[in-house]
């Protein structure tokens, strides 16, 4: 029959005695008590057996999880923000430049091309309703000149031939 020794102080020191963490003086004192106390010797034998059996306590996972501090995202430094903004601007600039280069010269509409051709020929597109009588007469004369020009193959036209082209009769002359 195992009983509890009344020397609580010694019983409280038994785990530390087993672990070897007792100060030397106290260890000697406890050891002397053990030599004369069967109850404490039996309790020490139980402690030794418990440690040897390696019975582990059930793990309370909920308590462990509750003790873990909540995850907090590390604050982003301003230097990183600036770098990200710079990278975004660089990517945007490259994209816009590439788009502009690919569409230069190819993106013009047919109407715009026609206007360019007409302008290159020295003709102006005018609104005839805004012309005065003199302006209208001048426009008519210009058209007559164009109509009077001979139809030739552009390939056969040489600078010398252009100089030999006779001046067409003016509208005023024909009238």
């Amino acid at each position: 029959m195992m009983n509890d020794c009344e020397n609580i102080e010694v019983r409280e020191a038994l785990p530390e005695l087993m672990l070897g963490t007792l100060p030397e003086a106290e260890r000697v004192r406890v050891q002397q008590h053990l030599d004369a106390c069967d109850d404490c010797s039996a309790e020490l034998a139980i402690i030794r057996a418990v440690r040897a059996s390696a019975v582990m306590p059930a793990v309370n996972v909920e308590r462990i999880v509750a003790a873990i501090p909540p995850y907090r995202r590390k604050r982003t430094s301003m230097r990183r923000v600036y770098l990200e903004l710079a990278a975004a601007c660089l990517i945007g600039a490259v994209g816009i430049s590439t788009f502009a280069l690919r569409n230069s010269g190819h993106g013009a509409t047919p109407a715009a091309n026609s206007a360019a051709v007409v302008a290159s020929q020295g003709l102006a597109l005018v609104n005839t309703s805004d012309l005065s009588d003199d302006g209208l007469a001048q426009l008519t004369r210009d058209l007559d000149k164009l109509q009077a020009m001979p139809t030739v193959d552009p390939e056969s036209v040489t600078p010398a031939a252009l100089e030999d082209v006779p001046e067409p009769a003016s509208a005023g002359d024909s009238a």
Partner: protein
Amino acid sequence: MVATVEEGDAVTTFDALDTMVADESMVRVRMAVDALSQKQKEVFMLRLEQGLSYKEIAELVGTTEGAARVHYHNAMRAVKEFLDDE
């Protein structure tokens, strides 16, 4: 012819018996600990396995230092009674 007992044989036999008894004792102790309540088991093992103080145990299991001490001594008494009844 005189049979001689080699010293090593005796030692070997003693060691095997001692180990068997020790294993049996550990099995019984393990059964005694398993019969403890959850709180008693936690306090008991933290005290004996880890060598924690009652204050440290109280913080870990969420109780007071005095309650941890009571749980430990109740557990030790329960283990003794379990082993006495075997």
